[in-house]
């Protein structure tokens, strides 16, 4: 049964959450539903931390997609898994491994690739090996004498947003809000450097430094988002809202905010769905809404291009 608890991330809190009641109260009206959410500590933490993580993911993700660095985000998401499990296998705090590994690897990839953009094959190879190491740490951790039953590995892979503690919520919210502020501050030069690096560096924009800084921010965001949706799914939170926003509008700053807005809506709707339907893991709910919004954006814009051509 431990597998279900791990994947659903919620079943361990089954005492707090009886499925029929949750759905009924949420359906009884927006005010009652909101009051109900605010009264449950684990739900409140999930909604607050989820919103902060969504804003950071939406903002960072916009530039990740713009700079064609989705693959980097993907590699980082798997690094998050290995970092967290390495810390657990060594008996340290999971968060140290998570943030340490993500930021270090992000900077290393910025250094390896030319002009702060890493090569696909290099990333792919490093990334597969790191995941292999993660599998090794998982085995070490689960076979060690500490009595671990393996759910930690599954929790890191697929997230435990309903299991956040008050302290974790504060750390995650503070870190992701700081990331969002930095992205907004460096937004204009970063946009310039992303769209036309040659002209930007001629105009004395520090393109290389920005590349490093940006990948560092991606690393921090990846580490924070791992706790919400899990290492394997954070790529969706980075790519889908940003991809949708870039399809809907060509104006960069509008797209930036739209991306963050879509991310928040995805997280909140996903959480509500997962809370009212017991069989659905919250990560699946979040990713499902994000994917649907991306598909809707594709459907809307492809009709527009067709009518423009005719």
């Amino acid at each position, binding site marked *: *049964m*431990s*597998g*279900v608890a*791990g*994947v*659903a991330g919620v079943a361990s809190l089954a005492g707090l959450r009886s499925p029929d009641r949750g759905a009924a109260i949420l359906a009884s009206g927006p005010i009652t539903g909101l009051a109900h959410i605010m009264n449950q500590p684990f739900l409140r933490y999930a909604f607050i931390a989820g919103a902060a993580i969504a804003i950071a993911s939406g903002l960072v993700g916009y530039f990740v*997609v*713009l700079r*064609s660095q*989705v*693959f980097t*985000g*993907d590699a980082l998401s798997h690094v998050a898994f290995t970092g967290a499990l390495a810390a657990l296998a060594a008996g340290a705090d999971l968060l140290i491994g998570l943030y340490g590994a993500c930021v270090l690897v992000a900077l290393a990839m910025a250094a390896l690739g030319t002009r702060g953009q890493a090569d*696909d*094959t290099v990333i*792919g*190879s*490093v*990334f*597969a*090996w790191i*995941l*292999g*190491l993660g*599998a*090794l740490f*998982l*085995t*070490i951790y689960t076979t060690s004498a500490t009595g671990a039953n*393996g759910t930690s*590995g*599954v929790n890191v*892979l*697929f997230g435990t947003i309903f299991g956040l503690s008050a302290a974790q919520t504060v750390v995650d919210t503070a870190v992701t809000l700081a990331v969002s502020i930095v992205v907004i501050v460096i937004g204009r030069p970063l946009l310039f450097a992303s769209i036309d690096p040659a002209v930007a560096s001629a105009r004395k924009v520090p393109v290389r430094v920005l590349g490093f800084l940006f990948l560092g921010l991606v690393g921090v965001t990846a580490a924070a988002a791992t706790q919400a949706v*899990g290492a*394997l*799914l954070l*790529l*969706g939170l*980075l*790519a*889908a809202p*940003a*991809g949708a926003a*870039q*399809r809907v509008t060509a104006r960069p700053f509008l797209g930036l905010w739209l991306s963050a807005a879509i991310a928040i809506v995805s997280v909140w709707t996903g959480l509500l769905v997962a809370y009212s339907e017991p*069989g*659905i*893991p919250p*990560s*699946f709910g*979040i*990713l*499902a809404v*994000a*994917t649907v919004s*991306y598909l809707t954006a*594709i459907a809307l814009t492809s009709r527009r*291009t067709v009518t423009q051509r005719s």
Partner: protein
Amino acid sequence: MVTGLTWNIADDIRQLFLYQFMVNALRAGTIVAVLAGALGWYMVLRRQAFAGHTLAIVSFPGAAGAILLGISATVGYFAAAITAAIVIAAVPRSAGGRGRSSESAAIGTVQAFALACGALFVSLYGGFLNGLTNLLFGSFLGVSGNQVLTLLVVAAAALATLAWIGRPLFFGTVDPDVAAARGVPVRLLSTVFLMLLGCAAAEVSQITGALLVFALLVMPAATAQRLTARPTLSFGLTIVIALAVVWLGLAAAYFSVYPVGFYITTFGFAGYVLAALAQTAVSRPVRSPVAAARA
């Protein structure tokens, strides 16, 4: 008979073939290595590593969904990977510089959503934690004779198709514009190639797990293309490296408690790093096969 590493090479190799499950694992590994090497070589050349990775990822919900429905996981692997290949090929490519970024956003979204579906299926099926870890990180235990036969048939069909489209595909990869002008159906070839890649990804998933497919699809090809620029030589070298990595990985996993996926990725990555170091040491800029063919 007690098994254990004796460092007596002949005796160790004899031990490897002692049990039927290990013989099946070695047979399956060999088939998978040849197929992954051949398709991985084209994939690295075509810079479709990200797409290949997605196809592998998608095989995870395929297998989990098949188990949930009570069908064989093998069917789930192939059905999901080939369907995903068709979807990726069908995603319209917009013109200009924005095409690449929106394409990679699409692949990233498909990938994360597929993994989320896998998590949902596992959650709905209820509690097979070891099964989940095996689906993601691979297991060489319990490969049946029937599975080996399925792997062999699919691999033979895929390799025959690859042999048939190999030359025009290489032309279309090296110079798509000229190839299209000469009447090579570039778009169709690209779709067929993605479907073959789906077959390969599904097969590799069954040995290394859905998350570690890269180790066999990318690493041997990337290593070989660093060592030589001649297309035929690097193609052969890719398959040899893939076979060596799989055999060493299976042997190491047999003699220890750690997962096979860890060994296969480690040996593959070690080979790649050695090749990169050798290339730097010689400091002779090796041209990629694409550049060599253009010259």
